[in-house]
């Protein structure tokens, strides 16, 4: 159980320490996340090519995790802006699996339905729908569904590119399907009943 220690009172802290969110995220992350080892050095944010578009740098987000600020963390756009370039990951002195923690936070935010801009979650979900239907990605279906829904204003400007991709044979109009779709479906259905708990 979290304790309100004398040290925390002397330090002027008004809440008892609650690391349950930190542990929850760490457990749900693939591999051994090392999230608890973060020393708040800020190397991650300083290495991030997309930090300027983030609500919080990764360092700040990890401090918020440690402080148990569940709602604020899951509302942050940071995990959605992360481009998975792994610059922070190879530079982190504590070897925190930062990019994988971001994936975990995305999954938690979708479940909690807290992240307000639906563009990114919908894109991921549409991609996953295609893969779950065909076993392969289907760029034309994905792009048309996604742009019509979220970026209709981008469509006119993108016409030359779309036409170029089609005429140059770089985008198929029909999806490819794997042979053993039943097998893949059985695997994924089973997988959906499982969760990392320890």
């Amino acid at each position: 159980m979290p304790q309100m220690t004398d040290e925390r009172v002397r330090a002027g802290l008004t809440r008892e320490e609650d690391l349950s969110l930190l542990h929850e995220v760490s457990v749900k992350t693939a591999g051994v996340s090392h999230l608890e080892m973060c020393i708040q050095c800020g190397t991650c944010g300083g290495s991030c090519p997309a930090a300027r578009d983030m609500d919080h740098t990764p360092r700040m987000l990890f401090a918020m995790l440690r402080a148990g600020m569940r709602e604020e963390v899951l509302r942050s756009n940071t995990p959605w802006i992360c481009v998975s370039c792994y610059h922070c990951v190879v530079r982190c002195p504590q070897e925190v699996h930062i990019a994988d923690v971001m994936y975990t936070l995305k999954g938690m935010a979708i479940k909690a339905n807290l992240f307000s801009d639906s563009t990114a979650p919908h894109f991921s979900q549409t991609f996953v729908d295609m893969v779950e239907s065909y076993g392969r990605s289907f760029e034309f279906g994905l792009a048309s569904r996604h742009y019509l829904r979220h970026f209709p204003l981008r469509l006119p400007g993108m016409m030359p590119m779309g036409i170029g991709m089609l005429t140059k044979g770089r985008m198929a109009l029909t999806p490819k399907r794997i042979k053993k779709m039943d097998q893949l479906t059985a695997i994924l259905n089973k997988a959906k009943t499982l969760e990392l708990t320890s």
Partner: protein
Amino acid sequence: MNKYLFYPGCSMESSAKAYMESLNTILEPLELSFEEIEDWNCCGATEYLGINLIPAYSLIARNLALASNQMNPMNGTGATHTIVAPCSACYLNLAKADHYMQERPSLGAKVNQALEAGGLHYTPGTLDVRHLIDILVYDVGVEKIRSKVVHPLTGLHVAPYMGCMLPRPDYKHRWSDHEHPTELVDVLRALGADVIDYPLTTECCGGHMTQIGPETAFELIRRLVADADDRGADLMATVCPMCQMNIDAYQNEMNHFFGTDYHIPVLFFTQLMGLAFGREPEELGIGAELVSARNALAHIGVEVPVTQEPAGPRKKSEGLPMPRRLNKHEGKEVVK
């Protein structure tokens, strides 16, 4: 003949067809034999991992399980336990699943529970997951590549673009450096190309942000293209379908966004290998890029046949100011 299991990945059949076509032309001269994994599925790219963890890893692991079943009949002829991926995102996903299933046995157990529903099993560590350029540099060797060159790319200024997901996070310590690796430089030099200094070589191309947060992606693409241009590159060479797609297909939209006029073609390194090995541009998918490489290749005497170009957007007249949508970064930063 060195035999390998081959995981093409979805884009090799569509947006990166040119990569596949050019790859096919270099296998024989380099004495490589690739056997495709039967009935492979999509690796989930960077999308499934953020939706649901165990299904995402199970999706990847089905490929590993199929490959490990397939490697048994290939006995006796060398590196059969090696699975080669030409796409950096596929390579990373396969390597990641293999690595994390070992590092976190509870993940490995759950993934195998799911695989069993499809009659499959994968023992992590069974396969070596490697990228195409890793095979070319460390198995084939730069000297052998050099020995096959009949048309050196002398005078072609190439920016070597490795991208981010290849040298990082590098679970098995395969690469010369995480941020400034030399593998692609070595291959391009062996082809006789004038490889320019390109410090951004492992910066991100924007990944899926071209789809979900174009403003973020455009800035990343702009940095890469602007730097290549500043340093006098005729073109960029890449090792990944997603990098090629982002920098090539979105370069026009990026130019519109910033009011710039960059024109840096992006070719797969295998296309340049094919040219140097004496193949014709048509055999190598050259011409499929949206930012045409025709002028760049004319420098070295390669003539790319004219294909039907799609009509570009009409040129805006400079005369009348037209209303336009304001974007998020306007006023925040002026970028040329």
